[in-house]
């Protein structure tokens, strides 16, 4: 194990090309998935927070439920949809980075939606009233309330990125773990561990942990910034 760790550090220090391409693909797939999930999730979170419609309660329940959606189940359903005989099979997306982006988006989307909703509804109602008293239109009022909820919303987005980048089950099913094409950090770790090649697996594991540390550090900083003292 110690030998594996030593070799892993030499891979990182030597900027191994295979390692770099895997990291780059991971960040590209997860980054794109996050953009999609953040846009769609924030929109849904805002809609269920600001409007009242008959199935609103059901939508909120589904959002919360899908936060814990097992990745491999998401991967299975996406596989059935994207496979050649599935409804979107004609698009030929299966075993491509695009399929992995879709899978990660599906997993990250409910996290952004649910945490955004939670952050928005927890904004003090006086903020909405104060905006209205200053002549804000309903849209401007909603934007201002969302601005007040920004730290909670950012926490949701960061948490969603954490979920996306550490995901393995769904992307393994729809991405296929093809070397140089759909192989990302998590799927490489799973494969290399199976093969007994621990150096690359450990190196990627270290990078994933560092990434997780950075994400959590950033999340902590965001939350601290949101907690401003209310009295002198």
């Amino acid at each position, binding site marked *: 194990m110690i030998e594996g760790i030593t070799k892993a550090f030499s891979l990182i220090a030597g900027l191994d090309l295979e390692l770099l391409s895997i990291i780059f693909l991971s960040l590209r797939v997860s980054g794109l998935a996050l953009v999609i999930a953040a846009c769609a999730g924030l929109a849904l979170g805002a809609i269920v927070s600001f409007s009242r419609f008959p199935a609103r309660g059901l939508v909120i329940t589904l959002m919360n439920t899908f936060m814990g959606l097992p990745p491999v189940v998401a991967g299975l359903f996406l596989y059935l949809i994207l496979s050649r005989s599935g409804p979107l099979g004609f698009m030929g997306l299966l075993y491509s980075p695009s399929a992995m982006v879709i899978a990660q988006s599906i997993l990250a989307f409910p996290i952004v939606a649910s945490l955004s909703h939670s952050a928005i509804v927890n904004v*003090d109602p*006086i*903020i909405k*009233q*104060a*905006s*209205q*008293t*200053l*002549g*804000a*239109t309903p849209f*401007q009022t909603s934007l*201002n309330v969302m*601005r*007040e909820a920004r730290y909670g919303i950012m926490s949701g987005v960061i948490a969603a990125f954490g979920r996306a980048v550490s995901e393995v089950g769904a992307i393994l099913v729809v991405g296929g773990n093809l070397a140089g094409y759909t192989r990302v950090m998590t799927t490489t770790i799973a494969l290399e561990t199976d093969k007994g090649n621990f150096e690359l697996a450990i190196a990627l594991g270290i990078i994933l942990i560092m990434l997780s540390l950075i994400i959590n550090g950033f999340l902590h900083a965001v939350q601290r910034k*949101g907690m*401003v*003292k*209310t*009295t*002198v």
Partner: protein
Amino acid sequence: MSLGLNAINICKSYNGRSVLKDCSVSLDSGGIYTLMGANGSGKSTFLRICALLEQPDKGEINYLSDPPFCPPLSEVESRGESTGRVTSENTILRNDMGLKRRMTLVLPGVGIFNTTVLKNVAYGLKIRGINSPAAEEKADKALEFVGLLHKKNHAALTLSSGEAQRLGIARAIVIGPEVLFLDEPTASVDQENTEIIEDIILNLRKDKMTTVIIATHDISQAERLAGAALVMRNGKITGKAF
């Protein structure tokens, strides 16, 4: 220009409990008025309805332009302007966003936004489409008016309750309201800040033609600030003081 207010038989209930009962009042433009009454007498609800933030269950709120509207109605309508109803003496303005933006209400808890003092004050201008430099210049003047210019770059949530109330007033006056409602502006404020806020209100009367309506339960404050005071009891305007 300033607005006069005419409230006619305002009634409001929440969950079957009657909060306002046939409240009627007519206030000329440009004056300072206080609305006195104990907690729960209906002052805040009446202010919110007068500020067009809530609909009454019954009754009418009319705002009257002063000086009276002169051009013939057909001419104004042909320009696509909001006229409301024109009587022989003045114009009863239509209740729309344009009218709502001519008044503002400072809430008892103010509702400070989690940003700087300056950005709080500039908010009302920016939502009216005024660009940042111009909005911030006007916000500076409003902050100077309430004695908070030295704190313009501070996080607004770090202000004391008295300073927060002054910020609320700056945020309101920066948009140049023709009617300013203040709901218990000194309720949770120390003596020093109470005096500062009262001075601000009196200076407001001196400097601008703004109709100011203040809800308070402090009779001595009502006497210091206003030429006329309305008394509310159990959801009814029971009389005028002074």
